[in-house]
């Protein structure tokens, strides 16, 4: 296996792991709010976070450029303060994976949190526990199956992310070419041997990961 293939594998894993960590942190919090709270703009928030699931990834990528590009409404301030832009770095690839994977986490976790028996939550309250304690000790442990499923789906989605990544991270060899992007370049330049090698590796990795996740979810519950 040559150095560029190894780099792509390593980069893909790195991007997917970082994206999934942030997906879990934000996804569970948003899912909890959507499942348990009523507030103004709740449905709009739900739509906003779900959009990347149905939009073409290129459109999601376009919005990310509008937001985080050097002239974007957020990116501009970052650039002014630090002279650094997230565009065309591996952070951008992680950001793209994060945004497209987040709805999978929110959808599955929200369903799991909503299915927790309300009497258990009320019981926790009558036993003197605050909402935060109840969330951490009762609601989330009883939703862990859905949260784990969401994390697995998010990781798989992050690993395979292509369109939005291409838009904001580009396809720079040795810098931002994750496996899906590298495969695209290799196939485009007619290097079928290397492309098929990477396709097999990506398929095996995804399969192995799902198998491990299934096994560990069986053992946990």
């Amino acid at each position, binding site marked *: 296996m040559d150095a560029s293939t190894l780099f792509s594998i390593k980069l893909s894993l790195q991007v997917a792991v970082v994206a999934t960590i942030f997906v879990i942190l934000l996804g569970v919090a948003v899912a909890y709010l959507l499942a348990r709270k009523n507030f103004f703009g709740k449905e709009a928030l739900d739509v906003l976070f779900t959009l990347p699931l149905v939009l073409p990834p290129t459109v999601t990528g376009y919005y990310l450029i509008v937001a985080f590009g050097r002239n974007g409404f957020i990116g501009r301030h970052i650039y002014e303060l630090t002279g650094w832009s997230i565009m065309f770095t591996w952070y951008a690839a992680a950001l793209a994976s994060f945004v497209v994977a987040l709805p999978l986490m929110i959808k599955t976790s929200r369903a799991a949190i909503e299915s927790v*028996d309300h*009497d258990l939550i*009320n019981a926790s309250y*009558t*036993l*003197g*526990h605050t909402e935060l304690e109840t969330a951490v000790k009762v609601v989330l442990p*009883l939703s862990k199956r859905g949260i784990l499923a969401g994390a697995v789906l998010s990781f798989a989605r992050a690993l395979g992310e292509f369109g939005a990544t291409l838009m904001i991270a580009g396809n720079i060899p040795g810098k931002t070419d994750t496996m899906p992007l590298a495969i695209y370049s290799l196939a485009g330049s007619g290097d079928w041997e290397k492309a098929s090698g990477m396709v097999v590796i990506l398929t095996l990795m995804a399969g192995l990961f799902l198998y491990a996740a299934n096994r560990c979810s069986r053992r946990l519950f």
Partner: protein
Amino acid sequence: MGLTVDIQKRVNGFSLVSSWEIGNELAVLFGYSGAGKSLTLQLIAGLMKPDSGVITANGKAYFDSGQDINIPPQHRSFGYVFQDLALFPHMTVKHNILYGAKGVAKDVRMERFSGMIESFRLHGLENKLPAEISGGQKQRVAFARALVRRPDVLLLDEPFSALDNPLRVEMRAFLLQVRKDFDIPVVLVTHDVVEAYTMPDTLIVYANGRVVQKGTPPEVFNSPLTQEVEELVLTRDHRVDIHPSIGLRPF
């Protein structure tokens, strides 16, 4: 000492007006399903908010719409046993009971826990999950969890309705023992005529969101004030059959 409830609540077109006062005794809220008994219990516990009125226990106001007092359920110290018991399925018996010991000082926690295991006959079950123990044991765990922090009031929402008959008889006797051991107001919601007849010090009859009669069981059963109460207690002739089997305070 005691519990005073004087509240109004409208929810989904149903109107509840509930007003009564009890001492450190066992009161049964009796009536058909949908009469407002369970709703009353949830309002007392603070799981729902009354539209107006007052709830006091041991002289302390927990809800008072006039003075804008509404203490959240977390700070009421009212033990609550749910109809489906609501044991935490992912926690062992020990952790379920200790979960109820919030606010109990660290040095007496384990002592209190051991006392609960002792008086609720839960030896050897400490490390079992709720799914691994019997229906009667689950009931006792639910009571232990609700009582471990020595609450000011005990609220019971038809806790025995899912049990088969021999176990229900056993649990009724058990509840009377609890009532004796813990000198606090106990409110039991039921639509079971046997429980209404044999268990309470005070029987409070609900119909259509109103309290229609309050008194000792003999008072209510022998002289029902309204047609509704009369219908509810029609089955009172069963008492001849039930007394020998239950052995509870015949009158």
